[in-house]
């Protein structure tokens, strides 16, 4: 609903909007800046926004002290793996709910979402026991399964809302032109479905990457991802602010960058199709 306004007004609006946005972003910016400071200047009073002696030592030390590549790789495998597995199961379901809706489709979708309402802590013990018994405890396979199931309702919902926007008429037109079911799927439906699948995938990678309950409680060392890596950096007591900031930056940077590049698609997917 943008409207034409005078330049001076626009300047005023811009200044106000940027101030608020920078305020919201500031904790992230401050963490990144602190990660390049020496420990002394990280706790300087009054705080220094910029320091005179930039350093990469914190990164070197965090890198040397913990096995960052292993945590990172676990995060990648778990978030990408659970998302791909989820898509594999969810695409047929969302597909048929969107194109062959039955009288109970809406109830089924609501039920799926309601399974997410059960607090994870409520089923911690059974999950722990099941994982111990089946040998899934502290394995990447176990976390891929757990996070896939945790995010499956969201994946189905998002895909459903995307697929619902594909006009059915176009299928009928293709069929009238003599397209076989196989060709219909390959040449008509797939190209129209890909953007929705892509943005569902992105959002779920982010959700899985940031998951911090099952990833911490169901792992010890072997399969621990970055959420456990950061939880292991215990209370720093003021002396290790720069290192804590470096570790934090290393944990969030991959997903922050991925998110920045895809924010438009993400926001659209996040609305569950209910907001245009």
């Amino acid at each position, binding site marked *: 609903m943008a409207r034409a306004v005078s330049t001076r007004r626009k300047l005023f609006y811009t200044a106000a909007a940027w101030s608020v946005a920078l305020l919201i972003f500031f904790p992230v910016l401050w963490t990144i800046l602190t990660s390049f400071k020496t420990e002394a200047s990280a706790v300087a009073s009054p705080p220094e926004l910029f320091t005179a002696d930039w350093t990469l030592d914190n990164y070197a030390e965090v890198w040397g002290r913990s096995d960052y590549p292993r945590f990172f790789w676990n995060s990648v495998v778990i978030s990408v793996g659970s998302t791909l597995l989820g898509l594999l199961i969810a695409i047929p*379901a969302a597909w048929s709910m969107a194109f062959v809706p039955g009288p109970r489709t809406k109830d089924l979708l609501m039920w799926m979402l309601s399974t997410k309402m059960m607090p994870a802590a409520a089923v*911690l*013990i059974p999950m722990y026991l099941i994982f111990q018994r089946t040998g899934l405890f502290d394995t990447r396979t176990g976390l891929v399964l757990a996070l896939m199931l945790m995010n499956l309702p969201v994946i189905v919902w998002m895909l459903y809302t995307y697929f619902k926007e594909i006009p059915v008429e176009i299928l009928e037109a293709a069929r009238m032109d003599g397209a076989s079911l196989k060709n219909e799927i390959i040449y008509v439906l797939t190209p129209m479905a890909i953007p929705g699948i892509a943005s569902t995938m992105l959002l779920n990678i982010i959700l899985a990457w940031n998951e*911090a309950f099952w990833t911490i409680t169901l792992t010890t060392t072997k399969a621990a991802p970055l959420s456990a890596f950061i939880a292991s950096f215990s209370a720093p007591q003021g002396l290790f602010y720069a290192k804590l900031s470096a570790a*934090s930056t290393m944990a969030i940077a991959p997903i922050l960058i991925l*998110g920045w590049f895809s924010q438009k698609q993400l926001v659209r997917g996040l609305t569950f199709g209910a907001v245009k």
Partner: protein
Amino acid sequence: MATQSSRTAARLMVAPSVTVLFIWMIVPLAMTLWFSFRVYRLLSPERTGWVGFRNFAWFFNSPDFWLTIVNTLALVGGVLAITIILGVLIALLIDLPVWGQGPLRILVISPFFVMPPVAASIWENLFMHPQNGMFAAAAIGLGMKPILFLESYPMSSVIFIVSWEWLPFATLILLTALQSLSSEQLEAAEMDGASALNRFRYIVLPHLTRAITVVILIQTIFLLGIFGEIFTTTQGGPGSASTTLPYSIYKQAVIAKDIGRAAAGGIIAVILANIVAYFLMRSMGKNLDA
């Protein structure tokens, strides 16, 4: 196109999702229900047997039970109120004609990408820490005593941190909704002499109802299970001042090692979630049709 065979095919395609979700939901739930009526302590494994509702009674009779419930609901309600009110205001601000709306959105969405343990530890150490935090530095600069955020106001501090994490979500969904509002309608109302407040109340706010409903539904699902932020910052303390239901279950299971009681807490949490879900789904279902 819904012939008999395509309906059968459709059911087969839905079946895997429904089956795995059903198992994922029912097996742990059944086990939790079973444990909740039994003695099951990891520290004295020789004692077993049925105890009826004793585990539940322990929860209801513990002096902190109602505080825990109130904290859980305060966290959900507080974060919803803050993120929706600020979200509407910020969305209105960004929706004004401004330079650089793209970069603005990137700045605003950033907290959403920060994983909960990192968000909590940034706020706890770099900002709220009573000696070295930025708030303490600001207080000293102004000649005041630093506030012990996590000790004196633990629940408010947790609500503040979680609100920061969820503000981008609310803001961006509300912004998306705002941008689909036609400017003609607003201009017509302006020409007819409607004040800015009335235009907001009678045109903008009704247009946002659906978006606000979506924000409430999705956030509630995630907020009911908030754990990482409390685990990282206050550990539910001081005392039980910031213990929510999920955290108190965690304490029973992992610290007290009493599986029976933790399971009873789990069942209470499921009942609470169902009560909340019932009211949400009813209002949400209506708004999602159309």
